[in-house]
C-alpha cells in the first residue's frame, strides 16, 4: 500500500513541476462593502471572464413561494433602472448592447448559489460596455410588471411540459423522499401554482434581501491587471443593496427509514432513482467519498455500476452514482433507465452492487486506479479559463481554503481503503434509501414475465 501511495505522490509532484501549475496564482481580497473577490491573471487570450454569485439559490425558497429565487434571477437581466452614469435599459437594450460587443451573459442557479457570469473580449471598449451591463443587471433590475407576467407564463409552460416527462416525474418524487421538508426538497424552478402567484414587488424584495454586498462572491480570470480587477470588482459590488448574507440553511435530517414510490407512466423505459442525503462541501469525508464514488458509479466505464448493469447485462445505456455537495448535505443519487420490464432486475443488481461495495469497500487495485485517474487527470480540470472560473467561484462561495485546488491531488492521493470503507459505512446505508421507479411494469405483468 505504501508503495502505491508513493507512486501516486511522485506522479503528483511530477505534474506539479509543470509551469501551468505555478501560473495558477489566486489573488483574493474584499471590496470595501464586504464582497469577496478571487482573481487569476491570465494573459494568453484576449478574454475576460467574470462571475458574481450570491447565496440566493432555491434553498432560500419556501413551499408557498417555490420558484421565487429562480424567477428573480431570470428576470434580473430583462431590463434595468437608471443610475447616475447609465440610463435605464429595456430588456431588448440589454440583449442588443451585449451582442454589439459579442459578449455572453449566462445565469447560474442551484440550491445554494444564484448569479451571472459574463464572458467578454478584454479590449477596453468591449470590456467596459459588457461590464456596465452586468453591473446594471445585478444592481438595478427593473422587474417591469409586463416582463414578469410574461416570464411567469414561460416558466409555467416549461414546468407543465416537464411535468409529464418520466425523468422529471422521478426527480420530483425523489427530492421530498430524500429531503423531507428541508428547502432542498423544493423544485428549483418552482411549481405551477406558486410561480403563478409571484408578483413583481416580491421579486424586488427578494433581490434587495439576498443580492447584497456582504453576500457577493466575485470571481475573475483573464486579460486584466490586478488593479483593473480590483476596480471591476468594486464597481460591481459597490452599489449593490447593503446588507449581510442571509443566515445559513437548516441542517438536512438523515433518513430514518427506507421509502419507495412507484409511479405509472406510458414511457418505453422505466426511470429509477435511489439515494439519501449525502455530503456538504466542507465535509471531512469529502475526499474519501469522492474517490470511493468514482469506483462505485462515478467513473463511467470504469465503475462497478456500469460494469454490472450495462457491460455484463446490457440493461441500460447509462447508470451512475453521484454525490452533490452543497452548503448542507446534497443528495447521494444512483440513477438509471431501462426497458420497463427490466426495471426490477436492474434495481436488484444496483442494490447488490451497492451493498457489496459498502460492506467490503473497494479493492487495492480499484483504489490505485481511481487515484491514478483523479491525480493524473488533475491538469484537465484547470486547462481552460472557463473551468478555472468555476473553481474560483466555488472556493469563494463555500469559503474553502485558498490552496484547496492546489492541494486537491494530494488529498486524493492520501485517501486509504479503510477511510473509504469507513466513510461509506457511516454515510451510506443501503437499508435506508429512498427509491423511485417511474414507468416500471405493473406488478401483475411482472409476474407473467418468463
Amino acid at each position: 500500500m505504501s508503495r502505491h501511495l508513493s507512486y501516486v505522490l511522485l506522479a503528483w509532484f511530477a505534474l506539479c513541476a509543470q509551469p501551468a501549475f505555478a501560473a495558477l496564482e489566486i489573488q483574493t481580497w474584499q471590496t470595501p462593502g464586504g464582497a469577496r473577490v478571487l482573481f487569476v491573471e491570465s494573459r494568453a487570450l484576449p478574454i475576460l471572464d467574470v462571475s458574481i454569485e450570491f447565496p440566493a439559490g432555491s434553498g432560500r425558497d419556501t413551499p408557498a413561494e417555490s420558484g421565487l429565487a429562480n424567477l428573480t434571477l431570470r428576470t434580473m437581466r430583462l431590463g434595468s433602472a437608471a443610475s447616475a452614469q447609465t440610463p435605464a435599459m429595456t430588456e431588448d437594450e440589454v440583449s442588443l448592447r451585449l451582442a454589439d460587443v459579442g459578449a455572453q451573459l449566462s445565469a447560474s442557479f442551484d440550491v445554494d448559489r444564484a448569479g451571472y457570469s459574463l464572458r467578454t473580449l478584454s479590449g477596453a471598449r468591449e470590456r467596459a460596455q459588457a461590464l456596465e451591463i452586468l453591473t446594471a443587471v445585478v444592481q438595478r433590475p427593473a422587474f417591469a410588471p409586463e416582463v414578469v407576467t410574461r416570464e411567469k407564463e414561460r416558466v409555467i409552460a416549461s414546468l407543465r411540459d416537464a411535468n409529464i416527462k418520466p425523468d422529471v416525474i422521478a426527480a420530483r418524487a425523489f427530492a421530498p423522499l430524500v429531503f423531507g421538508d428541508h428547502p432542498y426538497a423544493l423544485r428549483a424552478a418552482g411549481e405551477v401554482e406558486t410561480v403563478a402567484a409571484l408578483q413583481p414587488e416580491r421579486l424586488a424584495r427578494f433581490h434587495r434581501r439576498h443580492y447584497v454586498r456582504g453576500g457577493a462572491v466575485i470571481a475573475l480570470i483573464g486579460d486584466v491587471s490586478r488593479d483593473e480587477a480590483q476596480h471591476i470588482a468594486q464597481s460591481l459590488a459597490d452599489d449593490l443593496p447593503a446588507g449581510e448574507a442571509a443566515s445559513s440553511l437548516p441542517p438536512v435530517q438523515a433518513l430514518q427509514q427506507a421509502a419507495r414510490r412507484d409511479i405509472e407512466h406510458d414511457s418505453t423505459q422505466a426511470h429509477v432513482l435511489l439515494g439519501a442525503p449525502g455530503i456538504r462541501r466542507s465535509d471531512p469525508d469529502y475526499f474519501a467519498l469522492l474517490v470511493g464514488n468514482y469506483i462505485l458509479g462515478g467513473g463511467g466505464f470504469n465503475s462497478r455500476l456500469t460494469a454490472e448493469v450495462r457491460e455484463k447485462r446490457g440493461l441500460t445505456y447509462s447508470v451512475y452514482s453521484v454525490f452533490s455537495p452543497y452548503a448542507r448535505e446534497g443528495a447521494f443519487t444512483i440513477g438509471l433507465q431501462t426497458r420497463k420490464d427490466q426495471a426490477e432486475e436492474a434495481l436488484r443488481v444496483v442494490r447488490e452492487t451497492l451493498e457489496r461495495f459498502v460492506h467490503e469497500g473497494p479493492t487495492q487495485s480499484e483504489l490505485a486506479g481511481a487515484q491514478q485517474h483523479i491525480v493524473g487527470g488533475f491538469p484537465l480540470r484547470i486547462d481552460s479559463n472557463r473551468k478555472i472560473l468555476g473553481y474560483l467561484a466555488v472556493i469563494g462561495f463555500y469559503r474553502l481554503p485558498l490552496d484547496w485546488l492546489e492541494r486537491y491531488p494530494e488529498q486524493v492521493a492520501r485517501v486509504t481503503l479503510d477511510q473509504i470503507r469507513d466513510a461509506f459505512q457511516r454515510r451510506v446505508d443501503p437499508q435506508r434509501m429512498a427509491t423511485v421507479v417511474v414507468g416500471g411494469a405493473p406488478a401483475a405483468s411482472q409476474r407473467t414475465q418468463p
Partner: protein
Amino acid sequence: MPATRDLKRAATGALFLLCSLPALAADPIASFTLENGMRVLVQQDRRAPVIVSMVWYRAGSMDEQNGLTGVAHVLEHMMFKGTADTPPGEFSRMVARAGGRDNAFTNRDYTAYFQQLHKSKLPLALRLEADRMRNLVLNAEEFAKEIRVVMEERRLRTDDQPRSLLYETFMASAFKAHPYRTPVIGWMGDLQNMTVDDARQWYERWYTPANATLVVVGDVDAGEVLEEARRWFGPVPVRALPPRKNMTEPVQRAERRTILHAPAELPQILMGWHVPVLRDVESDWESYALWVLSSVLAGNDAARLPRALVREQRVAVSANASYDAVGRGPGLFVLSATVARTQDIARAEEALLAQIRGIAEQGISPGELARTRAQAVAAQVFQRDSMFGRAMQMGALDNAGLPPGSVDVQVRRLQEVTAEQVQAVARRFFSREAMTIAVLEPELAVPAPDRQ
C-alpha cells in the same frame, strides 16, 4: 520522407482585417499525410500540460444502406470491446489510469474517438487507437449485449422524447433521397435485425488509414506528434476505400407537412429549406450570407425571432434559427419554435414565415450586420479557450473536405457579407413549395395533476 508536411500559417488577410483586436489570429495548424493515406493535424496550445487527441473516420450514418441504419453508431460502441492485445473494457481503463478521459461520438458525417490526457501520455492514446484501427475483435456475445445497450439508448433519447421524435420525422420528410433522412441512432427495426457481421463489414469497409484523420491539440510539438503518429499508425496497412456515390437531394417542388401527435404539453414547430453549404471557403458567399441571416434571426435574445414571437406576440416560449454551413451532405436552414399553446400553432408558423419575408422584402439594418460581425469575431476568440472545441472545429472542417486551418478565412468572409447578400438569400431559398414543416401536436396521455 514518408509524409508530406504542410505548415499553414494564419491567413494574412485575416490579420489585416482584424488587427484592431490583439492576439486574435488562431494558432497555426500543421498538417501531414502518412504514406498509408492517414492525415494528421496538429495545433499547439501551451497553456496547460495536456492534450486532446482525436481520430476521425469519414464514416457516419450518411454512409449507411437501407436496412442497416444505425450501424455506424453501433460500431462506435463495439470499438470499446477489445482487440487481441486489449481485452474488452481495457481501453478505457488504461486511459483512465493514465489520468485521462475518453469517449466517442457518431454523427451523420463521421465517427470520432477522443482522449484527453497529460501531454506525456500521447503515445498511449495513439498506440490504443492504432491497435483498434486494425485489430478489433468483434464477437457475437459482446455484440448481443451491446446492441441491447444501443436499443436502450434509442428508447432514452428518441422514443421517450417527443421533440426527438419530431426531429426524426422532420428529417425523414425533408430528405427523400439523401441518407440524411435516417436517424444516426438507427430505426429500431434495423437495430433488432442487426448482426455482428453487419458491424464487421462496416469496420472492414471504413476503418482504414486513408479514411481517417488524427487531430491533436495541446502542449505538443508538431514534429513529435508526426513522429509518434508514424510510429503507431504508419504500420497499419493500406486498404482501398470503396468508391463513394455523390448523392444529391432532388429539388423539392411541393410543400411537405407532417403532424406528429405525442404526449407533450407544448407544441413544437420545425421548418426547413434546402440551402447550400460551404464547399469553397473563399468563393461560396451564399453560405456566409445564410450564416448572417441565421444570426440576424436568432443570434441574441432580442434578435428578430425571439423578439417577435416570444417578447412581443407571445405565441412562443422560444424561437430559433439554425444553419450549419459545414458538412459533407446537403444543407438545411431550420426555423423552430416551442409554441405557447396549441391554439397558437398557426400564428407561430405564420410569425416565423413573416420574419423571413420581412428580410426578403426590406433587408436588414446596418446595426444588425455590425452586431453579427462582432459576435462572429468574439465567438471565434472564445472558442480558443477550449482545446476540445478547437479539435472539434478542425476535425469537422477536415471531415467536410474544407481546409482545417480556414477558420480565419471564414471569419474574414463573414465580415465581408453585405446587407444586400443577406436579402438575396432570404429571397432565393425560402419559397413555400420548398418548405418542409413538422408540427408536434400535444396529446396528453398522462394526467397532469397540477394543471389548473
